């Protein structure tokens, strides 16, 4: 009994240590966004009415659409890791490219959402915002900063995915050696995780 327990302990330790680098990075990323969530919480507490009204300027439909899109991108990434474990190169490439395309659609939607706000004059430093007051300046400042930082994470994920796709294409990543794809996938899912937490802050509350 004690032997089987210690064996299980050793197994899980080994598995964790092989992934610890990327997990440390992911944890630091989450801390970065946690700081921003805290900032949002403080500012919202100080300016409840302005935040309520400013959030009404954002389209819930667009936010929900983007959430479903990015969940779809994570699904594509998960399918590609299933495919590479089975050693199916064509399916892996197909799902990686699909993931890239779905991720691109997220950014297209983000572009139109930002363009709509900017056309209304709601962007950091605009006269329209200065006229509305301090709370709106804070809300839209946080909105552009947090969604922008998230979009930058997606762009970094794009670079990672394009590199992984080329490695799968020249057979240096395959059914026996797919750790890089799994790690890139973890980073990609991290972008989904962060979006799932950002979404209610700006669209639902």
């Amino acid at each position: 009994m004690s032997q089987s327990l210690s064996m299980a302990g050793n197994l899980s330790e080994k598995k964790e240590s092989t992934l610890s680098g990327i997990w440390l990075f992911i944890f630091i990323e989450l801390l970065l966004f946690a700081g921003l969530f805290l900032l949002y919480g403080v500012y919202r507490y100080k300016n409840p009415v302005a935040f309520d009204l400013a959030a009404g300027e954002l389209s819930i439909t667009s936010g929900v659409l983007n959430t479903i899109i990015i969940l779809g991108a994570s699904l594509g990434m998960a399918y590609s890791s299933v495919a590479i474990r089975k050693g199916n190169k064509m399916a892996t490439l197909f799902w990686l490219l699909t993931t890239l395309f779905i991720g691109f659609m997220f950014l297209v939607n983000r572009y139109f959402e930002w363009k709509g706000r900017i056309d209304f004059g709601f962007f950091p430093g605009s006269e329209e915002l200065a006229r509305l007051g301090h709370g709106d300046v804070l809300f839209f400042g946080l909105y552009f900063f947090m969604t922008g930082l998230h979009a930058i994470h997606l762009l970094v994920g794009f670079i990672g995915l394009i590199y992984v796709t080329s490695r799968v294409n020249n057979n240096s990543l395959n059914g026996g050696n797919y750790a890089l794809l799994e790690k890139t996938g973890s980073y990609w899912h991290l972008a989904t995780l962060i979006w799932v937490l950002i979404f209610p802050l700006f669209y639902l509350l």
Partner: protein
Amino acid sequence: MDKQNTISAKSYTLVFIGLVLLTLISTGLSSLNLGYISTIIAFGLAIVSALVVLSKFMNVKLDGSFARLLLAGILALALLIFFVGFVG
């Protein structure tokens, strides 16, 4: 190597459908204007979705040391928000 760890494509599809449903439910509930309860609901469902992404897509075991660290972080953040909201 980690065959016991693999999840099939079908279960990933189910996870995806579940996450979409969670998003739609929290959106629907947020339109009801329940006051501060709707804040708790929106956040609660977001944290549930985030934990599903962590445990299913990212394959983090929610009883490992990473998860304990994460839980400590979330509790610390919740405590800070509580102090800002009710004491601040």
